[in-house]
C-alpha cells in the first residue's frame, strides 16, 4: 500500500542473477519503503542481496518481478532520480576535489562557475575547506569518502542511497564519519537508505532497520529505532540501544548460523546484560 509520503516503495520485488548460466535467486518478494525524510538501513548476512536491492532502487538493475514506486509514481526508469554512493569513493583521479564534487551538476548541464559556487558553499560542512584544488590521491580515506559524499549530495536528489559508505574506513574514522553523517542528515532533510553490515551503525543512524535473510534475501525483520534525536555516539552504551542491537544481532545470527539459533552465546546478549545494569543519563 503505497502512499504519497513514501519516497520509495517496493512490493514483492524479486531478482535472479545468472552466474555461469546458472540461476541464482538473490531477492525474493521483498517489500520495502522509506518515507520522506526517513533514515532507513538494510542489514543482512553477506551475499543476501543488500547491494542488489540498492541497485534496483537506483535503477542500475531491473527486478524480475514486483512493483516499484518513486515519490508516489510508477518509476520504470529511475536512473538519475536518486543519489548513489558506493563503498569505494570512485573519485576521478584526474579531477580536483572541487571538480569531482560537481560531477552530478555538470552532467545535468549546470554551468561550471555556478556548480563551483554551490560546491564551495558546502566545502566547510564536509571538512574539505582548503582542499578544493587537491587531487584525490592527496587526501586521506575519510576525506575521500566525504568528497564522494559531497558529490552525492550536490547532485541534489531527495533520496540518497549509500552502499556501505564507511566500510573501507578504519574503526575510528568510521565513528567520526557516522557522527558527521548524523549531523549532516538532520540538517539536510533527505531520505537516506543505507546498506551496512555494521549493526551499531544501523541502530545509531536509522529510524528503521530492515534485516534481510540469507540468500535469497527476504525481509526477516523490520525494527523501528525509537532513540531520541539528535543522536549522539555515546548512545551506544544506552540500555535501549544495546537491547535493539541484541535483537538485530540475534536475528542476523539466526541467518548466518541457522542451526544454532538464538540460544547460542552471542556478543550482543552479553552486552545487553552488561548494558542494562547501567542506567542511561
Amino acid at each position: 500500500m503505497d502512499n504519497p509520503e513514501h519516497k520509495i516503495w517496493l512490493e514483492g520485488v524479486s531478482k535472479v542473477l545468472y552466474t555461469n548460466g546458472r540461476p541464482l535467486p538473490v531477492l525474493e518478494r521483498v517489500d520495502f519503503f522509506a518515507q520522506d525524510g526517513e533514515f532507513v538501513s538494510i542489514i543482512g548476512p553477506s551475499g543476501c542481496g543488500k547491494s542488489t536491492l540498492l541497485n534496483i532502487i537506483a535503477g542500475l538493475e531491473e527486478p524480475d518481478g514486483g512493483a516499484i514506486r518513486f515519490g508516489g509514481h510508477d518509476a520504470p526508469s529511475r536512473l538519475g532520480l536518486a543519489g548513489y554512493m558506493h563503498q569505494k569513493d570512485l573519485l576521478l583521479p584526474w579531477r580536483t576535489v572541487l571538480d569531482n564534487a560537481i560531477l552530478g551538476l555538470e552532467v545535468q548541464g549546470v554551468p561550471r562557475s555556478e556548480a563551483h559556487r554551490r560546491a564551495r558553499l558546502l566545502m566547510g560542512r564536509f571538512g574539505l575547506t582548503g582542499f578544493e584544488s587537491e587531487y584525490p590521491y592527496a587526501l586521506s580515506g575519510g576525506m575521500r569518502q566525504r568528497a564522494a559524499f559531497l558529490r552525492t549530495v550536490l547532485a541534489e536528489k531527495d533520496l540518497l542511497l549509500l552502499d556501505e559508505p564507511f566500510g573501507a574506513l578504519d574503526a575510528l574514522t568510521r565513528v567520526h564519519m557516522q557522527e558527521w553523517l548524523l549531523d549532516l542528515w538532520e540538517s539536510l532533510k533527505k531520505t537516506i537508505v543505507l546498506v551496512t553490515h555494521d549493526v551499531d551503525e544501523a541502530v545509531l543512524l536509522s529510524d528503521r532497520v530492515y534485516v534481510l535473510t540469507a540468500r535469497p534475501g527476504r525481509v526477516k525483520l523490520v525494527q523501528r529505532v525509537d532513540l531520541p534525536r539528535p543522536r549522539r555516539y555515546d548512545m551506544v552504551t544506552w540500555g535501549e540501544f544495546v537491547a535493539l542491537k541484541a535483537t538485530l544481532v540475534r536475528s542476523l545470527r539466526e541467518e548466518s548460523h541457522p542451526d544454532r539459533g538464538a540460544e547460542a552465546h552471542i556478543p550482543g546478549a552479553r552486552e545487553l546484560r552488561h548494558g542494562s545494569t547501567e542506567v542511561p543519563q
Partner: protein
Amino acid sequence: MSLAPASASQEPLVVSEEGPWRRRWSALARWAPPLSIIVLALGVWEGAVRLAHVPRWLLPTPSVIGGELASSHRLLLRHTGVTLEEVLVGLGLALAAGVVLAVGIAYSRVLERSVYPFVIASQTIPIIAIAPLLLIWIGYGLLPKVIVVALISFFPIVVNTVDGLKSVDPDVVNLMRTLGASRWQVFTKVQVPTSLPFLFSGTRVAVAVSVIGAVIGEWVGSSQGLGYLMIRSKPQFLTERVFAAIFILSVMGIALFVITGLVERYVVPWSHTERRQRALGEE
C-alpha cells in the same frame, strides 16, 4: 559536536615537497650511471681501435664519427629532415587510425571479434617484407615510407588504447549512470581520461619503433633520407657516415620518446603523480 570532525588535524596529508638540493642531487644520481657508461664505452672504443690500428672503413673511432657529424652536417641535416617528416606523418596517421580503431574494438563486439585478430596477426608479418610491395604499388616518394612507419607504430597504439578503454571501473560507469549521465558523457568524462595514460604508453612504444620503420622504408627504395644515405655510403666505404646516420637516428628516437613523455606529463598529470605516489608507498 563539530560539523567537520577532526578533518585536517588528524588525517595525514600530502607528502612534503623535496628541497631543491635534494632534487639536484637525485637528478645527478639518476644521470651519472648512464653517462659514465657512455663515456667509458666511447673511451674503450677509441683506445682499442687506435691501438689495434683498425682501418677507418672497417670501424671508425668515435672522434672520426664526431668529425664526420661536424663536417657533413648540412648533408646530414637535409636527410634527417626527410626521415623526420616520414616519421612524424606516419606517427600521426598511426595515431589517428589507431585511436579510431581502438574505440571501435572497445565498443563493438563484432569489430572486436572480426578485426582484432587480424590487427594482432598483422604484426607477425615482417614489415621488411611488405615494404617492397609498397614500392611496387605506390612507387618512390614520401607515401610508402609513411605507410611503413604507420604500419609498424599502429599496433602498440591500438592494443594499449583498447586496454585503456576496457580498464574503466564498471562501478564508475554505474556512478555516472546514477548521476543521469548519457553514454556520450560517460565516454568523454570517464572513458577518455581513463584511457589517455594507456594511449601515451602505446605512443611511447610507437615512437621508438617508428624510426625503424622509416629506415626500412628508405632502404627498400628511396632517393633521400638517413636510410638512403646509409645505403649510399656503404659501397663507398664511408663507414663513419653510416655511423653518423645511426647516431642521428638514435638521437631522433630518444628525442621523440622524451617529447612524448613531456606531453604526457602535461596532458595527464594525474597519471604521473599517481604512479609516483604508488612508488612512494602508502606514506
